[in-house]
């Protein structure tokens, strides 16, 4: 069958099972927009291509499916770069389709020409400039395959305008893929799984260090079985919040720079750390040389390059983390049936004591300034954890990750690796598109919100009733906190002010409901009001305390043992926390 390259593109996306694409057209991609109009695909017209990119990410986080965005050449394509880099750092499956100037003009500095495959080389899992219309189906099939298998990531397909217009012969679907150099790791090594199970059986102070890979592999059910059988506490990283219910007695909360004291301390004191789909990121390890100094390490990852990159494991296991966890559970069950359950009673008791002694702590005075932690805890309580929480980057992100009680996987979406301000609103939009029946709440900063707020227009027009809760502290709060702690309180260009813009009016101008809340007493009523809106987006301007910090905190580059509990704890408590009397197992 004869088709144009553009028709082949759209048909390939349909065959690929794509139901929605986020995009914005322009000259070079115009040929593709024509068949798009009469296709089965839903196209969501964003207001900025960065929004399309983050929306595709939010969709992918929320659904586990590949998110798709589309943009024209030059500035359209470069506007996608931040989202691609974000997806690359957080291993988000995403396909970006960009128009390119006609083949004959490539390299001539033609109007709206940008070398987008060159630009995105270091921030994509793979990219390709297609030079033959007949290759379009294979290029698309390969893009989805590479994006979604192994360690997921973004793939960009660049399509010159003449290739989109050229005739091509459509064969059968699926097309033959030409990926001779692309390998997805095979089944994990059973020997190593057995070795890991044996370590878990012997360990007295084990910790399961759970990363985003567990969510991506849909391994939460297997994880719970393993944790309960191993009687091992579980810490879920910023990328893995929700992989293990926070309400579970074995849950430690989040580790790392702003992790719970108990999670940080447990890793430091552990005799065995089992890393599951986690990558020993510097925000988790603190100074690497001092991380979990007494622990043997089992490292499970689908990406062989992660194993040994930062910490050399005693037991390396390459493979799908769900398969590995299931295998470890099976092996451990045998050891338990012959040798009894792991002897971790002393350890879990010590951990429980830390939880009691050194919880996340903040003070909400009845007539005092509103605290962001209070807003988040009320949201958590009012929704029963039954929401998809999306965040920006900064203090509000850390407060949300700490204080919302996550119960389910894919209920927490954020920009972890790249730390992209402006992620929340468009990612929430994408999540809402992917999960129309679910409550999607963006917890955003006033600084972050202003970077991509224009997508409220898209949400209003598309009737996507996301909730955007702005923790309006009038500052680039996280930067302000660093200036307070490390630059002698010299506040250099971090004050945004709370009055401009007027977020309520801004929301209304975008066709959204706008609300404001300034007092702790009003939080529940305002949240109830916001949660009751189901047709358009709602923006709430929470005027929160501008001096509130995020604690605990391990200063960047310092050992985790130097964790600072913060102003809510006395000097005696800090000393006790630092000394950390460990029970002898």
């Amino acid at each position, binding site marked *: 069958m004869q088709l144009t390259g553009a028709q082949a593109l759209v048909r390939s996306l349909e065959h690929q099972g794509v139901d929605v694409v986020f995009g914005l057209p322009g000259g070079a991609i115009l040929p593709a927009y024509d068949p798009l109009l009469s296709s089965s695909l839903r196209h969501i017209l964003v207001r900025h291509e960065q929004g399309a990119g983050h929306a595709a990410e939010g969709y992918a986080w929320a659904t586990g499916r590949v998110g798709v965005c589309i943009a024209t050449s030059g500035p359209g394509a470069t506007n996608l770069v931040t989202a691609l880099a974000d997806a690359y750092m957080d291993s988000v499956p995403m396909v970006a389709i960009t128009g390119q100037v006609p083949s004959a003009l490539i390299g001539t500095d033609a109007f709206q020409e940008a070398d987008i*495959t*060159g630009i995105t*080389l*270091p921030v994509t*899992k*793979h990219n390709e*400039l297609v*030079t033959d219309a007949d290759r379009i189906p294979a290029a698309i099939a390969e893009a989805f395959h*590479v994006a979604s298998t192994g360690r997921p990531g973004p793939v960009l397909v660049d399509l010159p305008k003449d290739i989109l217009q050229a005739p091509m012969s459509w064969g059968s679907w699926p097309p033959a893929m030409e*990926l*001779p*150099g*692309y*390998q997805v790791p095979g089944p994990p090594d059973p020997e190593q799984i057995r070795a890991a199970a044996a370590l878990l059986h012997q360990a007295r102070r084990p910790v399961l260090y759970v990363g985003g890979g567990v969510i991506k592999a849909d391994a939460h059910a297997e994880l719970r079985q393993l944790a309960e059988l191993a009687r091992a506490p579980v810490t879920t990283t910023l990328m893995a919040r929700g992989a293990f219910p926070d309400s579970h007695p074995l849950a430690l909360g989040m580790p790392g720079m702003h992790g719970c004291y108990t999670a940080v301390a447990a890793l430091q004191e552990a005799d065995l750390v089992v890393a599951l789909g986690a990558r020993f990121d510097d925000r988790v390890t603190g100074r690497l040389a001092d991380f979990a100094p007494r622990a043997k390490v089992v490292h499970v990852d689908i*990406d*062989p*390059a992660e*194993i*040994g*990159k930062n910490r*050399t*494991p005693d037991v*390396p296991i*390459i493979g799908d983390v769900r398969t590995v966890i299931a295998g470890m559970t099976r092996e451990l069950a045998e050891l338990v049936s012959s040798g009894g359950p792991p002897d971790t009673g002393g350890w879990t008791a010590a951990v429980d004591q830390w939880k009691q002694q050194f919880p996340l702590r903040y003070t909400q005075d009845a007539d005092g300034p509103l605290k962001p932690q209070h807003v988040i805890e009320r949201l958590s309580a009012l929704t029963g954890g039954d929401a998809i929480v999306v965040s920006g980057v900064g203090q509000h992100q850390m407060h949300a990750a700490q204080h919302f009680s996550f119960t389910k996987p894919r209920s927490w979406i954020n920009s972890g690796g790249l730390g992209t301000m402006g992620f929340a609103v468009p990612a929430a939009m994408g999540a809402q598109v992917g999960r129309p029946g679910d409550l999607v709440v963006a917890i955003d900063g006033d600084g972050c919100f202003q970077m991509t707020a224009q997508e409220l227009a898209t949400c209003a027009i598309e009737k996507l009733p996301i909730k955007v809760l702005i923790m309006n502290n009038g500052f680039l709060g996280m930067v302000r906190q660093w200036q307070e702690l490390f630059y002698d309180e010299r506040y250099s260009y971090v004050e945004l002010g709370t009055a401009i813009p007027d977020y309520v009016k801004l929301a209304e101008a975008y066709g959204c409901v706008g609300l404001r809340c300034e007092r702790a007493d009003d939080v529940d009523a305002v949240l109830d009001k916001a949660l009751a809106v189901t047709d358009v987006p709602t923006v709430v301007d929470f005027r929160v305390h501008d001096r509130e910090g995020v604690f605990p905190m391990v200063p960047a580059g310092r050992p985790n043992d130097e964790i600072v509990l913060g102003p809510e704890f006395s000097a005696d408590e800090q000393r006790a926390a630092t000394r950390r009397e460990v029970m002898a197992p």
Partner: protein
Amino acid sequence: MTTHTLSVLVENKPGVLAHVAGLFSRRAFNISSLAVGPTQDDQVSRMTIVVDGASTPVGQVTEQLNKLVRVLKVAEMHEDAAVERELALVKVRADPATRSQVLEVAAVFHAEIIDMSPATLVLEATSSPGKLDALLAMLEPYGVCELVRTGRVALARGAGSITDRSLAAVPASAS
């Protein structure tokens, strides 16, 4: 300086060199030399990359290279189990007074004279990297006007070939 020699088979497609070079710069790996050329299979090119082992974790390099979609195979060539050669062209000052001495040096190192002017000689030398360095050290006092080296190429000794060896053989724990 300890170096590692990696043989990298890649798809013979546009942009592949940029993918590989981009990986090295992004990950702050140091390349000492890089040689690229066709192979017996016209779909496949072979790169020989020499990395400085002290500054660059060779296991990581291998794993990261393996992740590039256009990279087909990566194998480390170990000095004792591979033949390694590099070609150099050297333009060295040689006036009538010093010419015979330079010719003597060339003869010892089996370097050929491929051009001559009243004031210079051009030597061609193909050799193992160490010998080449020795030759250059010998020529240095006469005055090297210009030097070009191809970078190292290598083949494993014996009957086997890189294409029939599994890459999974590189253990992750070695990185």
